[in-house]
Each structure stands twice: as structure tokens, then as C-alpha cells.
């Protein structure tokens, strides 16, 4: 499975990952090699196997809908690179 540089660019965009041209080239080679390796799974007969996504058998674990103590606003903001008026500050979505 050969991953082209254009595919790498597309995937990087989906992943919101800024890559240099050198990285694009390197990942195209390395990821192709890894995809070649995982291709061996096609040899495994799995038509009668259910997929496993969780091993504990737990599903839909519920709790009472109650409020409990949580982080204060100050604590929640304590690691924010930029904040404004006690809120996270980020780039505008609809700005020009």
C-alpha cells in the first residue's frame, strides 16, 4: 500500500497537523511501510468473528444526575495559553 504525498497532505489536514515538506516525504515512506505490514490481516479469516471494542463487557454505565464539586473557573483556566474575562480566548470562527 503506497501512500502518496498528496494523500499524506490530505490526512494531515484532516488531523489538523501542520507538517513540513520534509515530514510529508518521510511519513509517506514510513506509513506506507507500516500499512504494508498490517496488510497481513487480510489473510485472517474473520467472517464469523464479532469485533471487540471493549473487553470489560460494560455498556451504558449510568449514574444519578446530580451535581458534584468540580474545578473552579480559575482552576479550569489555569493552564490556558490565552484567556480573556475569565474565559478561554481563541481565534474567531466567522471573522474575515
Amino acid at each position, binding site marked *: 500500500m503506497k*501512500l502518496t504525498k498528496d*494523500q*499524506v497532505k490530505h*490526512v*494531515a489536514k*484532516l*488531523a*489538523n*497537523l*501542520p*507538517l513540513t515538506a520534509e*515530514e510529508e516525504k518521510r*511519513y509517506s515512506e*514510513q*506509513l506506507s*511501510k*507500516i*500499512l504494508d*505490514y*498490517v496488510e*497481513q*490481516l*487480510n489473510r*485472517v479469516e*474473520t467472517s464469523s*468473528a*464479532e*469485533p*471487540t*471494542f*471493549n*473487553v*470489560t463487557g*460494560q455498556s451504558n*454505565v449510568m*449514574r444519578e444526575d446530580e451535581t458534584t464539586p468540580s*474545578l473552579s473557573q480559575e*482552576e*479550569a483556566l*489555569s*493552564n*490556558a*495559553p*490565552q484567556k480573556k474575562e475569565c474565559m*478561554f480566548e*481563541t481565534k474567531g470562527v466567522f471573522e474575515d
Partner: protein
Amino acid sequence: MGKNNITSLTLIGTIKGLKQKDFSEEELNNAYFERIAKLNPKLNSFLEIKKNSCGIPAAIKDIICTQGIKTTAGSRILSNFIPPYNAIVIQRLLENGISVIGKTNCDEFAMGGSGENSSFGPTKNPWDLNKVTGGSSSGSAAAVAADLCAFALGSDTGGSIRQPASLCGVVGLKPTYGRVSRYGLIAMASSLDTIGPVTKSVEDAALVLDWISGGDGYDSNCHPERSEGYKHIFFAGAQNDKLIKGLKVGVPKEYFGEGLNPKVKQVIEDAIKKLEEQGAEIVEVSLPNSKYALAAYYIIVPSEISANMARFDGIRYGSARVDFGPEVKRRIMLGTYTLSSGYYEEYYAKAAKVRTLVKQDFNKAFDPPAGGVDVIVGPVSPTTAWNLGEKVDDPLTMYLSDIYTISANLAGIPGLSIPCGFSEGLPVGLQILGKQWDEETILRVGYAYEQSTEWHKEKPKI
């Protein structure tokens, strides 16, 4: 008691020493602090050190959140992150009289098998400073091996506790998935991540597991009743010669084939003989799908990583995504690709089915009506510690060093690594795998082995 004697004590020995007033908590903390100050520049085991005057000093992998203590996950992107809360495991340790003496180095976001993917430089193996420690819990394993803490916590997604424990000659326990709450563990692959102890003895591992297991309501896979007592298996005055008499020990033929270093193989075979001498029945078992486990793992893990790493947006915490290291970027890319439209069935869904087959292999081997075994033993790692830099340019070769450990993560079962000898001066670890929720039996086997050997008492000359 001399300072070096204090730091060479096991956790249980330390508790005993404190009780008998052989030394004070302050003397204990000073002894460890001084030893870290002296040896850490050589080992790069700790990223952050804290001077305490009380509590028993534990080293915590830097991927576990500690309130008010910088937690980087070995990544530049979190180089200034100070968690405003404690992980549940940290809360539990504090409640049991443990203090955090420092945060240990690790592969960035636990992605790696050598410790070299840390943004803050590799950890050096205390047995040979030119060798890797294994990873990703590199600093935790090195800190325990070099007596820089009474015990440590690590995390294991594909072998990240067991493999460095093996390469550094200490005890490492990966609990059953769901035994220990992941709340406060910075997530890598959520369906596989576990937290567990790295210790100087099997008894110590049982004690720490006792403290940290059980649910908290913050990890839906971890239930309160999962907290069970493990201490009783030792402290009830177990008679060594009866510990594993009649126990069925499975040896998977697939773990002894091509790729296993012949000298490591010899050490492991000697260890298995030792178990036989103690009355265990050795049975060959087969895990036919284990050869596909690595491929399945390297689809499932990057897929889950690509989703988990999306949280690093540089808005709420951390710096910009450009600061991710090469392995993290590689896995995000791979996972984004395998989950992308049109490829999900071919990759993720297929790997999830192969995961079922890997799990069924274990179920069959452990199934009592079919004459199943109580535990499965084999090597942890196909080789001993390799040279720093040897595999960094070849991700696939690096991934292959996890070949014997990842199946346990895919199946969610517990696994223990214990020191079982040396090859050319470097430690070899014996892996003991157990049934889901049956840490007790693997600890018992590990304890029985430890009681009959002296390997765990060997210390690196550093």
C-alpha cells in the same frame, strides 16, 4: 541504618522499618532525595523532583496527573502543564501515606518502547548507561532499578510497564483492563490503557495494586467491587513449597520461535524449569493468532490515538500541535488515515475482529473444562536492552520489540514481569499472564518464583 541501606529496601521493608522506628519518614525522604540528586543527572529518570519530609516516596510516570506538580507526558506540548487535580491513583496513594518524590520520564504520551521518544531526552539504563531502558515507562523502571524511589507507577497500553521492567530488572504489573481507574491518566489508546506498579518485589506490587484498584465513578470501565485484597495471599503465612503445587503453567509455542534471542530463550527456559521444580505442571499451549496481534494493535492504537490527541488544541492547555514529536505525529497520521472515510471497514473494523480472535486464543488456553492452564509464561521481550539510538530510525523494528506484550492488552488480561536472570550482564524478565480479573494467581506464581531465586536482589552498580 545507613542511607544506602534505606534506599535499597523494598516498599514492604520500608513500611516495616518505619514501624520499628529504624529510621524516620524524614530520614527516608532525605536518603532518596540525596540519591536522586546524585544519580539522576546520569540516568535522566526524573523530569521533576519534589522534596518532602513525610510519606513513603513514590515515583510517578509523568503521564499521570498530579495536582500542582508539572505533568508533561514527556511532551513539549505540555511542557508547562500543571494539573489542577490528582488522578484517582494519586489520591489513593496519598491516602495510604505515600508521597510523590518526582515525576518520571517517558516516551511522549507513552508512545514508544525505548524511552527515546521523550521530548526531554532518553532515560539511561542503570545496568549500562549506553543502553535503553525500554519504554514507555522508562523513568519509572530506571528509578526503581537504581533505588531512587520505594516504588513507581507506570502505564501499560502495549507493554509499557512490563517491557521496561524486564529490561531494567524490576517487577512490573499490568493489571486487568478495568481494575484500576484511568481518571487522571493522560489518554493514549482508551480501550487498552492501564495503570500499574513498578516495584522491587512481587509482594510490593500486590500491595500497591491493593491501594490503587477499584472504581471511583469517573472511569465507567472500572467498578468499585474491582477492589480486592491481594495482600492476604502472602501475609497469611503462605508455605512456599505449596504455593504453586499442581498449578498448570502454559507455555505458548508461538513465543519461542524465530526472533527470540537464543540467550534470552535459555534464561526463560531455566525459569520455567524452576517453576516445574516447585510442583507446577508445565503444559504447551498455542496462541495461533498472536502472530497477527501486532498488526491489529498498530491499527487499533493509532486510531484511538488520533481521536484522543484531537483534544490538544492549544486553547485550554498546552502549546500548538506543531510541538508534537515525530512518533506522536506518525501515529496521529496513521490513525487518521485508518479511520478516514472509506478505510474504516478495511482497517479498524478488521483489526477489531482480529482482536476478538486474539482474545479467544487466551480464553481457550485458560478454559478449565478443556483442561486449560492457570497462567501462561514466556519472555517479556525478545531481546535484552539494546543500544541507545539503535532503532530510532526504523519505527517498524521498534514496534516489533512489543511482540510478546501487546496480546495481553488486546485481550484485557493481567500480566506480570519479574526478574529471572541475566544475559551478558543485562536483565531478562519472565512474563506471567493470567485470566481476566485474576491478578491473584499471577502474583502467586511470581511470588513463588521470587522466593526460590535471588535475581530480584541483584542491584546495578551505579
